[in-house]
């Protein structure tokens, strides 16, 4: 039980995928202009990450490993992720057209979100069990969603700030992300990982 809790705290805070591992920066910068969009993106990514960690684990455990084709991991995982993303996109187009429109290109781009592939590969690297994989994927996604929404709330404030012209937009957003990352260094050492 403690182990699971540590995995969660570890992935959400201490080894946050965005602010500590610097994975998934593309949607982090791209879909954080509005809180609602960021929340939607967080939800979609959480769904994709958790589901794909489980499926990739199954694929790895029961297909790739037994057949001895572990070297195809990356290709197979990308296939899995792309399908899950496409599935999410189809469902979202039906259930929430506005969010679909708002996420726009970033929704299919979850496919190339390195955080998703990163989770899948790290799972195999650290020899996680199925439950651990699911938790690891879920934790990473929660960490991603958490900082994404917090970042979006900050960016909504920064958007109305009197930022010098050359620094408006992405520049100040990257500085903000950097400062957030600096603050997250405070969690270092909390969980030995």
């Amino acid at each position, binding site marked *: 039980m403690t182990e699971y809790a540590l995995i969660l705290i570890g992935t959400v805070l201490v080894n946050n995928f965005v602010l500590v591992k610097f994975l998934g920066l593309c949607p982090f910068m791209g879909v954080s202009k509005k*809180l609602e969009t960021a929340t939607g993106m967080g939800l979609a990514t959480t769904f994709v990450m958790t589901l794909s960690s489980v499926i990739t684990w199954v694929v790895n455990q029961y297909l790739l490993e037994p057949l001895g084709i572990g070297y195809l991991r990356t290709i197979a995982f990308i296939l899995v992720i792309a399908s899950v993303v496409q599935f999410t996109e189809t469902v979202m187009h039906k259930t929430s057209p506005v969010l679909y429109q708002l996420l726009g290109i970033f929704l299919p781009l979850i496919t190339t979100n390195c955080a998703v592939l990163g989770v899948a590969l790290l799972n195999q690297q650290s020899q996680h069990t199925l439950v651990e994989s699911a938790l690891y994927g879920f934790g990473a996604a929660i960490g991603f969603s958490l*900082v994404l*929404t*917090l*970042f979006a*709330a*900050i960016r*909504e*404030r*920064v958007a109305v*700030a*009197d*930022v*010098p012209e050359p*620094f408006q937009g992405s520049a*100040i957003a990257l*500085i*903000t992300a950097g*400062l*957030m990352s*600096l*603050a*997250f*260094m*405070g*969690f*270092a*050492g*909390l969980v030995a990982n």
Partner: protein
Amino acid sequence: MKTFIASSPHVARVNRVDSIMLQVLLALVPGILAMIWFFGWGLLINILLAVTFAVAAECTVILARGRSPLPAIADLSAVVTAVLFAISVPPILPWWMTLLGMLFAIVLVKQLYGGMGYNPFNPAMAAYVFLLVSYPVAMTNWLTPTMLTEHHLSFTESLRIILDGSLPQGLSWDAVTSATPLDEMRGKLDRNLTMGEIRQSPLWGAFGGRGWEWVAAWFLLGGIYLLWKRIITWHIPVSLLSSLLVCATLFWAIEPQTHPFPAFHLFSGAAILGAFFIATDPVTACTTTRGQIIFGASIGALVYVIRTWGGYPDAIAFSVLLLNIAAPMIDHYTQPRVFGHGGKRG
């Protein structure tokens, strides 16, 4: 009589930003005097250096934007940032680190966001953390309280240490510096010493760290002055300190041998200073009443968590920055119930 469309109210306004900042500086004076008393002249030099650097940096940036720097300087916010930074760093910090810290605080954390009022992060704390992760040794090299050393650094000696890092003749670094009480406790706890053994250290005072307890007490006085003058409200300091106290009491009650007496947490390190002067920075804190309580309580809890299990002996700066990140979100979800709106809002 000029004709113009000006909205009411038409009478003189009662508050001013610069007078608020001045009151904050005033309230810091007793604590600063106590720190000088216990840790020597270095702090005063640091304050002067930091203020100079901060004001110069602010002027430069604003001039570079083609604006008049006078109003921004006159609001004293840069001075407050500089003084808070100088209090937080070791009193013999090399001058160039102070310069680096002030450039980071004023240029990157404050002015790039548009100056006072727009920065999402506390500039002084961001600069402190920046230096702490970049120069961990220099940033934890505290002076020994004056009652524990035979040699008291004079003003010129402190100045020389800060400017070119040279110690007075016949003195070693060990003679003038030591770890902070919190740092020492963490180190000894990691070596499996019990609280009883740790408390034998000369760095321990009556209810906090030696010297530190009185510094904190004087800052507390300043904080109460700010409350009395209504410069700050009680929500953040009270929730911060009580959550820290609750955490500390809880673990101390369970296992007194590995957890210090609760008052130690309050009166060592920057807890009091942080609660009244740093976390209450209105620009970067929560603005709703409920939000402020969550903000303060979370900082208190985080301080305890990081001090106890994290990688840093003190955690006010990190905790404040982490809650700075969360403040806009907390504000969003803690809007008060507006007059005439029936149900509570989430």
